[in-house]
């Protein structure tokens, strides 16, 4: 057992932390709100190796895994980075898993052109993939349409739909796009399920980062804000709520890291852990942002204060995959398959 990061992982984390601190300030995030996308930041992040980070060296990547990707995603989540830091690396991993079919496409993606994103929700409706994150700026969308995994090239530009998290959301018209079939049948579903599991684990990391930063914003505020002649952070109701959030945020971090490690080690529990991590981090992110906002009093409601940026995204990001209720049912499907002896504590 070892809960410390390796030197390389720490270095990776520091590199992206520094990049984000400089190029993804709250000012940048606010500037990107009208489009949901910061192309300068995206260029920097791809140049720094985000997309190739978790691609095998044999496919031209850096050979990292979900843990490395998660570390960067946690930093991006904390900064509310308006770039597809989950959707594109996951899409690239699909391509790299497709063998020769994917490699030609992957080479372009790794160099930043075209911008490809993964749509985390299987398309049930006829010919439209609804509200796909970053579809308003992507040049390609990888989506599961019935039993075919498609690389969709939509007619550009797709109109961005105004939304809670100020994301670059758009409906993708599969019927009127050029579609390349990446896989069909069981193969398609398997690739999609694998990618969705990865999306959940990495999104859990992002939401953990969001939660931790929202908490820090709240702690900062209640330490400075004085009422009744003392900092409001000295009131137990406030301190104790934030202590609960801090506890849960630590739990969310441990859980996504466990899920990512399990995935990277090929552990059969990985998909279930990713599910758990995603559901838990979603709840924690919302709670962290919500309590921090509340402790700002009326100021928390003002656009001028930053906490509302967190509050909106904490709810919006996880919804990309659908309802928590549906996710819980999926988790139940995985977690207690009828004949399986549940031995979580069986190391």
């Amino acid at each position, binding site marked *: *057992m*070892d*809960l*410390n*990061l*390796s030197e390389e*992982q720490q270095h990776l984390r520091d590199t992206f932390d520094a990049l984000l601190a400089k190029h993804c300030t709250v000012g940048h995030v606010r500037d990107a709100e009208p489009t949901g996308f910061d192309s300068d930041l995206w260029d920097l992040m791809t140049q720094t190796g985000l997309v190739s980070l978790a691609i095998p060296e044999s496919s031209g990547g850096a050979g990292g895994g979900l*843990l490395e990707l998660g570390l960067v995603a946690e930093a991006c989540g904390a900064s509310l980075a308006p770039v597809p830091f989950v959707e594109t690396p996951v899409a690239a991993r699909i391509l790299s898993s497709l063998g020769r079919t994917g490699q030609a496409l992957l080479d372009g993606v790794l160099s930043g052109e075209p911008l490809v994103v993964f749509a985390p929700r299987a398309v049930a409706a006829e010919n439209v993939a609804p509200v796909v994150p970053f579809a308003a700026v992507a040049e390609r969308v990888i989506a599961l349409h019935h039993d075919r995994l498609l690389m969709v090239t939509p007619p550009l530009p797709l109109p961005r739909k105004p939304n809670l998290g100020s994301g670059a959301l758009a409906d993708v018209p599969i019927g009127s796009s050029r579609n390349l079939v990446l896989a069909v049948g069981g193969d398609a579903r398997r690739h999609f399920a694998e990618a969705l599991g990865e999306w959940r684990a990495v999104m859990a990391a992002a939401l953990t980062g969001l939660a931790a930063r929202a*908490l820090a914003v709240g*702690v900062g505020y*209640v*330490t400075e804000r004085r009422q009744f002649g*003392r*900092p409001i*952070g*000295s*009131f*137990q109701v*406030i*301190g*104790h709520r*934030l*202590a*609960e959030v*801090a*506890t*849960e945020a*630590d*739990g*969310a971090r*441990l*859980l996504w*890291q*466990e899920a990512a*490690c*399990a995935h990277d080690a090929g552990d059969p529990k990985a998909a279930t*852990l990713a599910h*758990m991590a995603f*559901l*838990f981090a979603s709840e924690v992110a919302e709670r962290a942002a919500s309590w921090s906002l509340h402790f700002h009093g009326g100021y928390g409601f003002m656009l001028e204060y930053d906490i509302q940026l967190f509050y909106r995204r904490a709810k919006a990001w996880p919804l990309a995959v659908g309802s928590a*209720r549906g996710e*819980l*049912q999926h*988790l*139940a499907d995985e*977690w*207690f398959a*009828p004949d399986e002896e*549940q031995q*979580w*504590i*069986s*190391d």
Partner: protein
Amino acid sequence: MDFGLGDESATFRAEVRAFLSEHLTPEMRERAHRTGTHHDWEFHRRMAERGWLNAHWPKDEGGQGRGALEMMAFHEELALAGAPVDGMGITMLVADVIRSVGTAEQKERILPAVLAGDCLFCLGYTEPDAGSDVAAVVTRARRDGDEWVINGQKMFTTLAHEANYVFLLTRTTNEGPRHRGLTMFLVPMTLPGIDIQPVHTMGGERTNITFYTDVRVPDWLRVGPVDGGWDVMRVALAFERGGAMGTEIARHLRLAVNWSRRSFGPGGGCPGDDPEVRATLARVAIRAEVGRLLNLRTIWDSAHNGVPNPVFGSMAKLYLTEALVASLSELLDRLGPAGVLQNGDPDAPAEGWLEAAFRHVPVTTIYGGTSEIQRSIVAERGLGLPRTR
């Protein structure tokens, strides 16, 4: 990073499991449940024979030199099996303190019986007016030659009716800061002047109030320096953190999952088909995993860095116990009207163990430092917020 407990833990875990299936009888569990005394001398001595009471001690001190992760696996298995090990937990906590700060005489005269499984300790900290504010204790120890004369009263002296010694926190002076006037003793329960009154609890556990009237204790049974009891307490608290609590949720979840798969009704189908039941089980499974990880982190970090991180310990205790309470409430809801039936009734779902657990779990958020104390530690020492009291 690596979240596995390692091969040694797996080997030890298998050994413990085999031992439990051989030596932990349904009668032992039933007796603990019925009497509310979660200690069984026969089981305790079997553990002692295996050398497991002090398995975590170095080999040259008579232990097995087992690491923190092996011990975690050990405690997890005991808890998952529902073994009556409250007595062992408390006894080894005090034994760890004696080993760490006790005198040579104490180690020589007391520890052999402890390790043989023949000597049990109970804790005497809490008083009627000193709960979370433990430095407020007023039980008085007055020096008289080579002896100390003790007068006072302790609340919740669990297992006092079985124990050989009470690990007693007393006040030795009213001078100076409150926490600098405390002294700890090992008080033999057979001494004249000790009275034990049983206290019965909602959870079914039996505890006690103990009264001390002119109890004369020889000075060699004092643990740590005179007026240095606070520091001894802190040593004990460090040992107390990160116990077997990490698996409590998992144990109840396992009961609920088994219940959910039991078929029922003429139309077939089982509770596990109901989306509400499934959602609850999934939610509880997440909490069980988060709690396990927070606990694991505390134990790993403490072993890795050599000193326990109080914030990690508080987070684990807070999360595990609060999640336990929330989970039992939701699980009982899912059992429906029959969920109120108790162990012994043939119609009780999960043999009534979840009903029993529902009555038990509130105390977990109280003993060993209340949730409020833990939240204050996290807020002040973890988040750097101003003192809240």
